[in-house]
């Protein structure tokens, strides 16, 4: 029996170490989720078993949290939409044309991805005060374009590079214009790339904390900022914080599973050249 088991798992020592490692890595993640279901009286309790409760989620539902959550959905969704509409054609153009400055544009985009948010926040905060964009969802969407547009261009270019040009040349000979060819031939072929790019773009805006903290107050505050509000104004409501945290991270975790094949390229932020 031992040998059959060993034949099935020839590297069982490493496999067991792997399972332990995964449990260790995911421990904080599951810890937060279980805390969100733990009854208020039992938050400090050390017992492993408890009767799960939805009281913290109900408390959230009755407060301002749903409003912030909707703000998050709208701002991250709009930023993704605009970044895709503007960024996808740009990525295609960079992939197809041999512009002299293409390399320099690539470096510029890398710097934009890497630039510290504080460098954009100071000028935009001052500008927003004059433009009346402070604490507005529009203002937040505009800020999110600073990184999401660069991300879309960076992620989509390799997908276009992979589409053979011969297909487009054939269409061009049939009299199709450059952008008509793009829409009818090239774009459908990169559908998985488009989906992955949009999802990663959404995650990045959704996860933002810094911009929303500074550029919003009450009207446009997003879910991550609302969580901080629990610490500052409500006091140490661990259960409610855990419930809010669970709600904020769930879409991200689910989306990541959907696009895990492409996740590497998006999160590596250009470190891995396509």
């Amino acid at each position, binding site marked *: 029996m031992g040998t059959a088991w060993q034949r099935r798992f020839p590297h069982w020592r*490493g496999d067991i170490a792997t399972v332990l490692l995964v449990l260790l890595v995911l421990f904080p993640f599951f810890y937060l989720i279980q805390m969100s279901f733990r009854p208020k009286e039992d938050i400090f309790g050390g017992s492993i078993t408890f009767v799960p409760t939805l009281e913290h989620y109900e408390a959230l539902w009755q407060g301002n949290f749903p409003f912030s959550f909707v703000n998050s959905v709208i701002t991250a969704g709009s930023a993704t939409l605009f970044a895709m509409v503007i960024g996808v054609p740009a990525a295609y153009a960079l992939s197809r044309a041999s512009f002299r400055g293409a390399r320099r544009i690539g470096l510029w985009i890398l710097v934009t991805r890497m630039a510290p948010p*504080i460098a954009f926040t100071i000028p935009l905060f*001052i500008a927003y005060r004059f433009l009346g964009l402070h604490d507005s969802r529009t203002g937040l969407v505009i800020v999110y374009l600073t990184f999401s547009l660069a991300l879309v261009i960076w992620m989509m270019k390799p997908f276009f590079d992979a589409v053979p040009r011969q297909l487009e040349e054939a269409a061009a000979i049939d009299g199709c214009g450059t952008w008509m060819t793009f829409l009818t031939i090239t774009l459908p072929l990169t559908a998985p790339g488009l989906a992955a790019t949009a999802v990663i773009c959404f995650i990045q805006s959704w996860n933002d904390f810094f911009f929303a903290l500074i550029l919003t107050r009450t009207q446009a505050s997003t879910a991550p900022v609302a969580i901080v509000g629990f610490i500052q104004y409500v006091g140490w409501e661990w259960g409610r914080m855990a419930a809010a*945290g669970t709600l904020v991270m769930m879409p991200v975790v689910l989306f*990541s599973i959907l696009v895990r094949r492409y996740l*590497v390229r998006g999160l590596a932020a250009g470190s891995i050249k396509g």
Partner: protein
Amino acid sequence: MTAALSGQSSWTDRRGRELVWGLAPALAVLAALTVVPAIYLVVTSLTPLNLAVPNSEWDFSQPLGNYVGMFEDPRFVHSLGVQVKLSVASVLLQLLIGLGVALLLHQNTTVRQLARSWVLVPMVLPPIVVGITWLALFTVDISPIHRFLAWIGLPVGPLLTNPATALWAIVLAGTWQHFPFAMLMALAALQMVPEGPVEAARIDGASRWQVFWHVRLPFIMPTLVVAGLFILIDSVKAFPLIFIMTDGGPGDVTEVTNFYVYRQAFTFSLWGYGSAIAVLIMAGVFVLSYVIDRITTRNDGQWS
């Protein structure tokens, strides 16, 4: 023949012109959102702008005042020291742990292929959620880690309010969140190590450690250097974890340079001074990005 060629080139020209129209809107938006603010940031850094002081916006009487002043500001110099500690510790820890995990997951077994996806979870989580999770884990009353340590007879006091440990607690939480990135890079590089030299070394009787040290490690070194530079850039931008877990404290022991700029600009309204420090951070990030670009271009094709 000639006609065909010129027809070909005019098609290329026309196509080139049309493609420009796809690129132009994106470049215009990027310029408006990144170049214009960057220029404004540099201009502001030459003034003592303080929104509470009228006419400070266009006061260029002492253009380099902020830049000279910062090195006489002990709190700024202190923040640089904190930054160096945080950055060095983050880069070393994340690279070591990332490489270690990559070596474990490099082997192709079913369990390990599944694990490659699972260990990525911390990396995609919203930083704010990572912050509250570790805040809870570092809170003695409720943390199972503290309870466990007390149970095995090694009770540990609150780490985040202790000036000696607060920064390292933040490094620990940050490492948990970001090590998958180093792991991914190392894993991608490990899978590209050619089997030939590895086999040859094994036949010559090299131990597993010798194969790693003399064959695999030199091969993946360029990737690790690039990963280290990325971690370095990320550590310069550290903010959410510090904001939530310590708010720069206790005192100023976890106040990194980025956090200090935030304080100067958004707490004390010293926009001009804050901008000057932000310009320095920008310049540093620019240099690092340039180095990354150089290295990756030189080794193009080594990573896919």
